[in-house]
C-alpha cells in the first residue's frame, strides 16, 4: 500500500470517527436509546447521511465523474445479510455498540468500548472456527439476490428510491419527535459525559439539565 492510499484511509477514517463522536455516538446510552425509542439521533443521523451520500453518488454517476458508475456495491446473499443483521442488532442492544461506534466509544475514553472490540475479535475467531459447516456455507453463499441495487431489483428510477427514503426520514422525524417528547428526552453532551439519564425534570416539567447547560453556554459567550 502506498502512502497515498494510507493517507486517504487515515483521513477518511479520522473524519468518520470525528463526526460520529460529535453526534454523541461514542455513548452506548445514547446509541441504545434509539432502540428504546427515546432518542432518535441514530435514525436521524444515519438516514440523513445515507440520503446525502446517495444523492451525491447519483449526481456523480450522471457523467461518471470520479468513475462513480464503478463505485463498489456488494452482492446480496440474503441469509447472510439477515442473520448478520440479527446478530449485530442483538450485539448492539446487549453490548451498547456496533463495530464502528465501539471504536468511537474507546476513542472517547470508554473501556467498555475496548472490551466490545476484544469481543469482536473473539467473534471473528468463532466464525472462522465454524466457517466450513454446512450452515455457515449455506448462509454466506446461498439465496443470492439477482440484482445488487433496489432500483435494479424493482426496475424503478433510483431517484424514486431516494424520494421514498426522504418520506421515511420525514416520517421518522415526526414519529421520533413525538416519542422523544413523551420520554425523558434526548441525551445531551453533559448526560453522556457525566453518565446520567437525560432530563432532570422538576415539577414544572422544565428540563433542568438542559437549562443549566444553556446557561453555561451563555456564560461562556
Amino acid at each position: 500500500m502506498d502512502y497515498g492510499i494510507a493517507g486517504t484511509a487515515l483521513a477518511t477514517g479520522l473524519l468518520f470517527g470525528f463526526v460520529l463522536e460529535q453526534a454523541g455516538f461514542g455513548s452506548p446510552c445514547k446509541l441504545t436509546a434509539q432502540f428504546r425509542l427515546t432518542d432518535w439521533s441514530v435514525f436521524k443521523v444515519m438516514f440523513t447521511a445515507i440520503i446525502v451520500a446517495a444523492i451525491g453518488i447519483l449526481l456523480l454517476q450522471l457523467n461518471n465523474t470520479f468513475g462513480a458508475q464503478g463505485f463498489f456495491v456488494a452482492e446480496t446473499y440474503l441469509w447472510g445479510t439477515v442473520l448478520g443483521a440479527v446478530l449485530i442488532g442483538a450485539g448492539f442492544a446487549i453490548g451498547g455498540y456496533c463495530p464502528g461506534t465501539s471504536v468511537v466509544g474507546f476513542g472517547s475514553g470508554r473501556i467498555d468500548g475496548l472490551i466490545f472490540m476484544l469481543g469482536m475479535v473473539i467473534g471473528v475467531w468463532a466464525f472462522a472456527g465454524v466457517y466450513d459447516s454446512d450452515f455457515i456455507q449455506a448462509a454466506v453463499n446461498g439465496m443470492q439476490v439477482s440484482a445488487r441495487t433496489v432500483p435494479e431489483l424493482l426496475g424503478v428510477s433510483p431517484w424514486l428510491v431516494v424520494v421514498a427514503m426522504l418520506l421515511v426520514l420525514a416520517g421518522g422525524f415526526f414519529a421520533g419527535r413525538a416519542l422523544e417528547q413523551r420520554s425523558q428526552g434526548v441525551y445531551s453532551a453533559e448526560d453522556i459525559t457525566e453518565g446520567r439519564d437525560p432530563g432532570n425534570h422538576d415539577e414544572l416539567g422544565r428540563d433542568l439539565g438542559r437549562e443549566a447547560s444553556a446557561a453555561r453556554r451563555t456564560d461562556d459567550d
Partner: protein
Amino acid sequence: MSCQVRPLWPPFIAGIVLGLVVLLTFVLVGNGMGSSGAFARVATEIGLQVAPEATRENAYLGGMAQGNPLAAWIVVAAIGTLIGAILASVSSGRFRVKVDRGSGRIGVAPRLLLALGGGLLAGFGSRLAAGCTSGVGLSNTAMLGVAGFVFLVVFFVVGILISLLMRRVW
C-alpha cells in the same frame, strides 16, 4: 484544553457531514466506509502470531493471512476512526476514561461482560453479513444496495426487541 463540555452537533448537521464523509470515501477510494473488516484482519494477525499453522489452514482466516495487516486499507481507516474520536472528544471536553455503565444500574464487571458478549455477537454477525452498520447499513445503502436496506430493517427490529430485555442495564 477547556473543561467545558460542548454540546453535540444537531442530528441533521451530523447526518449531512457524515453523508459527505461517506461520499468523499467513495470518491477517493471507490468503496464506502467500513469498520468490522478491520477486526477480521486484526483477528487474523493475532491468529498468525499465536497459532500460525492453524490460522493459515483455516478456510476463512487463511485467505486474509497474507501481508502486513497495516497494508489493509480498512485497518488504517479504523485507526483513523479512533484518532478522530479522540480529537473530537478531547476538543469538546467529553473525553473521560471510564467504564460507561449508563445511568449506573449495573456494576462494572457485568457491564464489561455484556460488552464482551455483545462484541462477540457483532463480530460473528459482521462476518455473516460481510460488513456491519458502517459497511452495509451506511455505505451499501448509500449505493441503494439491496443488502443495505435488508440489513437496516432487520437490525432495527431485532435491536428494538432485544432492547426490551435490557431495560435493567441502561
